[in-house]
Each structure stands twice: as C-alpha cells, then as structure tokens.
C-alpha cells in the first residue's frame, strides 16, 4: 500500500470513528444497556446487525457508545498530559533549583516503570470510572512531554531573545508563556501525535482488566474481555471490539508517524504495543 493511501485510510478510520462517537446516541439502534435475556449470544442478523452479547444487549449499539468512551478518554487524557507535562517541564527547566531536582527525580522513577503498572496503581488508589481513568492515563503520559519540555527550556533560556526580554524587565511567567511556550509547542505537538496510540492502548488495556469506565457503560476493552469469556460460543463478541481497537491503534500509529515526517523528520517513532 502506498504511503498516501495508508494515510488516507487512517484518516478515514479516525473521521468515521469521530463521527460515530459524536452521533452515537442517534445512530445506536438500541439503548446500550438494554438487556434481553431471550436473545442472548446471537450472531449477526437483520434485527441486531452485529449480534447480541451474553446479556442480550445489542453489540452494534455498545460498540458505538464504547467508541465514544475510548475517543473521549484518549483525547482528554492526551490533552491533559500535554498541558501538564509542558508546563511542569518548562517551569523546571527554566527555574531550575530544588523544583527541577524534585521534578527530575519523579520523572526518572516514572520513566523507569512500565506505563501500565503506573496506571493500574493509580486506578487502584483513586477508584474506577471516567475521571480516575483520565487521571491515571494522563499521569502516565505526561512524563515524556515533561522531559522534552525541560530540555527545550534548558536550551531556550540561554538564547538572546530570552535574555533581551529579561533585560527589559519581564518576569518568569511572562517569559514562560510568551517566549518559551510558542517555541516549544510545535515540537511537543509532534510528540503528542505519536503518543495517541499509546494512550488508547492503555485505555483499552485498563478497560480490558475491568479498571476502566464501569458497567453497564460499555468500552471496547471491556467488551473484548467479556467476549473472551464466551469466545468459543460467540467469537464475534471478541472480534468486533478487537478489530475496532486494532483499527484505531493502527490509524493513530500511521498518523503519529506521518506528522513527524511532515514536520520534523528526525523525530519519527512508533508506539510499542504490549
């Protein structure tokens, strides 16, 4: 497949995903939590286009609403991680001193640990649901941005335009927001584009373990896990969310790779799926 076709396909998937997420309540043929025990574990049919799950719930409706959850959680967590990581990184790089030391130690420890472990630990203590999930994912993802922002701040703060601004009497807040941030933003945005797939994978993994948004609210990971329990009787229950997760990770990976190629060729990196 040519590079442009791949990119087009990935963009198409994400556009479809976003549209389905926005319109999920209108598109879903059934309420996502409506159980019907008389029609459990059915295969695809005209009444239920993607069949029904172990409680007789419509899989298509649940997949649509689950995609909404995955998209919302992924984008909010990524945005939060980017803002948090950037601010803390720029601040610790520019101000230095004890703040920098403490922040750097924290970043070192978190970087040495597997992301899934950090996320699981946070969910374990904070609780389960939408907000804890977002908190856990952004607390895992901010570290990379913080490290990058810090090293950018370290090199930028010696530049003449910062010195000039300081000589003109500008305070640290002004320099941080008006001078460092605009310089660092494009590089960090490239890094964030590559991070989307990783956040989505962590979201799916946590939901798969039952640590994501809570039932009856669906998510792709949770659907996959309950599909695994009845894999032999009704394989479509695991295949539908499985394919959706695969498609989303693939699309985000392709786009994440193409953004750096377009903007900063040397920073191309791929997310490792575990």
């Amino acid at each position, binding site marked *: 497949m040519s590079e442009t076709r791949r990119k087009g396909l990935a963009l198409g998937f994400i556009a479809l995903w976003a549209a389905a997420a926005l319109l999920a309540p209108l598109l879903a043929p059934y309420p996502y939590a409506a159980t019907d025990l008389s029609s459990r574990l059915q295969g695809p049919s005209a009444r239920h286009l993607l069949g029904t799950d172990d409680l007789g719930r419509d899989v298509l409706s649940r997949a649509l609403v689950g995609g909404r959850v995955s998209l919302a959680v992924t984008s909010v967590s990524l945005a939060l991680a980017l803002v948090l990581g950037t601010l803390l990184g720029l601040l610790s790089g520019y101000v230095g001193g004890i703040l920098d030391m403490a922040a750097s130690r924290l970043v070192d420890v978190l970087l040495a640990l597997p992301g899934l472990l950090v996320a699981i630990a946070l969910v374990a203590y904070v609780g389960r649901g939408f907000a804890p999930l977002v908190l856990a994912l952004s607390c895992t993802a901010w570290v990379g941005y913080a490290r990058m922002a810090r090293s950018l701040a370290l090199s930028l703060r010696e530049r003449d335009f910062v010195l000039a601004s300081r000589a003109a009497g500008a305070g640290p807040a002004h320099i941080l927001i008006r001078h460092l941030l605009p310089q660092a933003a494009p590089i960090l945005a490239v890094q964030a584009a590559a991070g989307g797939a990783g956040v989505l994978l962590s979201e799916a993994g946590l939901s798969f373990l039952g640590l994501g948004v809570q039932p009856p609210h669906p998510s792709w990971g949770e659907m996959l896990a309950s599909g695994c329990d009845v894999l032999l009787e009704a394989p479509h229950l695991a295949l539908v969310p*499985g394919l959706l997760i695969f498609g989303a990770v693939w699309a985000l990976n392709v786009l994440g790779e193409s953004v750096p190629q377009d903007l900063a060729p040397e920073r191309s990196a791929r997310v490792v799926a575990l």
Partner: protein
Amino acid sequence: MRRYAARRLLLFIPTMLGLLTIVFFLGRALPGDPAELMLGDNAAPEARAALRRELRLDEPMGSQYVGFLHDLLRGDLGTSMRTRRPVSEELGLAFPMTAELGGAALLLACAAAFPLGLISARRPGSVADRLVGTFTTVGLSLPSFLIGPLLLLAFAVLWPILPVSGSDEPGSLILPAVTLSLPLAAVLTRVVRASLVQEKGRDYLQCARMKGLSESRVYRVHALRNALLPPITVLGLQAGAVLTGAILAERIFRWPGMGSLVITAIKSRDYPVVQGAVIVFALAALLSSLAADLVYAWADPRVRYE
C-alpha cells in the same frame, strides 16, 4: 568493571527510595479514612480502631513512613484484608507463576528475534527480509489482548492440540507465553536488524571474510557481538513491561498469577496486597534495567570508562 557496577548499584538506591516514597504517599492520599474504605460503612468502631492501629494510621506521618520502610526491610508487607494471610505469602504464591510466564516470553522473544534479525539484515530488500518486515509490522500493531483471543480461538477450534486455559496441563504455558512474547519479538527483531545493518560495511567484517570465514559465521560471530548493545537496552527496558503485560495475558488464558491477585485486590479494596504487588512489579522493572546496564558494560568495555 567492578567500579562501574558499584556506581550503578549505588544509583539504584535513591531510585528505589523515590519509588517507595511515591507508593507510600499514594496509599496515604486516599480520599477518606483507609480503614473505613477497607472495612465498609457498617463496621464496628472497635474493628476500625484495630485496623487503624495495624496500619499505623494513628501515628504522625513521619513515623508512619519510617515504619513502612522498616517493615519492608524485614520483608513484612502487611496482611491481606480479604484472606487475612500475610501479603508476602500471597505474592510468594502468585509471583513465581507470573515470572515463569514472563521469563518464557522473554526467552521466546530472543529465540525468535536474533535469527530473524540476522536473516533479514544479511540481505536487506530480499524476500526473507520483506517477510520478516511484515511479521514485525503486524506484531507491533497487535497488542497482547488482541493476539491472545485470536490464538485461543485458533487453538481451541481449528487446531485443538494445545491447552487453552489454566495452568495444570504440561503445554499450558505455550499459548500465554507466545501471546506475551510476540510484541516484544517484533520490536527486538527490528532493533537487531537495524543494529546489524549498521555494522555492515565495517572493516573488521572484511577482515573476517579475508580470513576465509563463511558469510554466516562473519555475521553470527563477528557482527552480532558488536551489534548486541541496542538489543540489550531494549530487553532491559521491556522486561519490566513484559512482566506487567503478563497481567493481560493471564486474564485471557486464566493463568493463575499476579494478574488475578492484583485485579481481585483492587476490586475488593485490599490495599496491602495492591501495594505489595506494585512494589514487586516496580522492583522487577528497576532490577531488569539495572541488569541490562551491567550486561551492557560487560559487552562493551568502552561503557565502563564514561
């Protein structure tokens, strides 16, 4: 070498201390009274008071912290709220199962990655290289919780020769280990290939060829040793992630390890077990990156004199 190892070991101590401090404060930052959270709303006040004493919640923060570290040094991780057994005992049962799974996955990944990397690096662009490239692309896009169900389905329905669930039968380890190893094998193959390709035009390879060595020996022995460093780094960084990732594979194949222990503990608010498991996983991750650094220095003497 000894001086390098000593310095690296010394660096390990503050990292571990930082980690334990984070774990400690996570436990104390719980919203509300941990004793009440663990026992539920309608517990007797005496039981709550006893638990508060057991968890040292009545003491000032500083002495709680010192007590926490002191207990850890003695190997005391507290008592499980659910089973009332020592956490160290629970972990002692579950961790070997997970370590077995993770170790098997690491070995499998190495056993696949080095030959595949060698084959594809020898003739970039060849059919073999392109096949290996397809394998790594697929392996990188498929997380373990997607490979797992596919393998399970294949081996349960299409080709029922392997046990697909539990840990009692002799072949039970195979499917979860393969599931867990595939993503790592894919990454590692890429790293081995890239690292070998970089060595390609070097003079020492020409020299080895002029000695009359076979092309495969030139690659297997001479190029590989010099190309070993990047794969070692990746292995060290990924070993901890593989162990944590085992939680997912265990869920699919009902492998009785740390996964079910941790998930049950989280759902029943069994904080001592959660804390113990987090410490064990984190320690394993830090130790594997420490081991990678030491092997790195052993394989490349230049590293020791930095």
